[in-house]
């Protein structure tokens, strides 16, 4: 009986591991499908890293500093030009400086839009990475399931094979006993 018990235990262990691997793979695939539906609905799977406060405050600061420096340089150039020309255009100077401010604001708007477009693309890729992440686990679990079912198949083959042997032996002995009884009679 030990051989059938061992084979049966082996079958149970292999089945248990197969079930775990199969269940986890299914769970991962289900999560992947949920993620894809989220993307299809035009929503993010996870948080958009390009909308985090830390990131935005930094890039806004960066852009603001660049624009301020550029605007101040332009205004200083105007002042120098006005001085060099003996103050002939003094009345137009404030208007020209104001125009620089306006243009700087417009440029700021444009730069922000450009960065937003870049961030949008980058976030799309990041969301695809998050959406597909469960597939990696599912693939490994699929391999584990394959191994587990192979192990279970072998154990089952052993179990049924040994059970057949047991019954064949019982039948053989019974037949032999009957034959011996007949010969003795």
């Amino acid at each position, binding site marked *: 009986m030990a051989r059938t018990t061992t084979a049966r235990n082996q079958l149970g262990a292999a089945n248990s591991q197969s079930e775990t691997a199969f269940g986890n793979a299914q769970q991962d695939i289900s999560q992947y499908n949920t993620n894809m539906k989220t993307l299809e609905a035009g929503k993010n799977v996870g948080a958009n890293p390009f909308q985090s406060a830390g990131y935005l405050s930094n890039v806004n600061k960066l852009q603001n500093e*660049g624009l301020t420096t550029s605007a101040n340089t332009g205004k200083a150039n105007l002042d120098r030009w006005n001085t060099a020309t003996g103050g002939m255009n003094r009345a137009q100077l404030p208007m020209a400086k104001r125009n620089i401010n306006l243009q700087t604001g417009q440029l700021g708007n444009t730069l922000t839009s450009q960065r937003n477009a870049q961030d949008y693309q980058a976030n799309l890729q990041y969301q695809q990475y998050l959406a597909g992440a469960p597939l990696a686990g599912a693939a490994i679990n699929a391999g584990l399931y394959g191994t587990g079912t192979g192990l279970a198949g072998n154990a089952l083959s052993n179990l049924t094979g040994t059970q057949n*042997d047991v019954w064949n032996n019982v039948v053989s002995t019974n037949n032999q006993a009957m034959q011996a009884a007949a010969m003795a009679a």
Partner: protein
Amino acid sequence: MGNWGAPIGVGVAGGDPLTVAAWKAMGRITAPRTATQKSQLGIYNSQGNQAFGGAQQALGQYNTNIGALTAGRNVGANPYLAAPYLRNVNQLQSQGMHAGAEAGKAALRSRPGLNQSGAPLTIGNNALQAGQLANTLGSQRAQRDYLANLQWQQYLAGSPLAGARINAGLYGTAAGGAENALNNYTSAQSNVWNNLVSTNNAAMQAGAMAA
């Protein structure tokens, strides 16, 4: 299935069935090979369980990591916020800025004294601009570091998969070993029982012929 410990053929007229002692004696002869195979099976099963458990644990960690990224959190520490890194890049930037500002001031001082009264103001302005530039450079580096950290966190998140893949391979090998050991074990056990039954049958037949 019957009691295999009892003598087979008892009650058969003229039979000389195997006794319990004879069965045990045969069992002792064949026991070592089946014991070895069973022991081998146990080792492979233990290793297989360990590999399977390890793979599942790694996959669980991977899922946890992806959960952290999905929630907008870091999986591990941001290396670009480490004190030694920041100290070094700040020092690097500071030295570069300082050298640039000093060179500018020196150039202003070296000019003939026609703008003597304006020079201190220009030098002051130079220092101010250097400070603003430092601010800007710091922000530029912070933006690069932010993107680099995003990649680093993705690397950290996926790192348990490497161990899981190796454990999956180990599980496959252990399963193959266990299959082989089980095949050997049941085959050897079958041989033992077939031989015992064959011997018992022969004994019964001989007894019947002698009667």
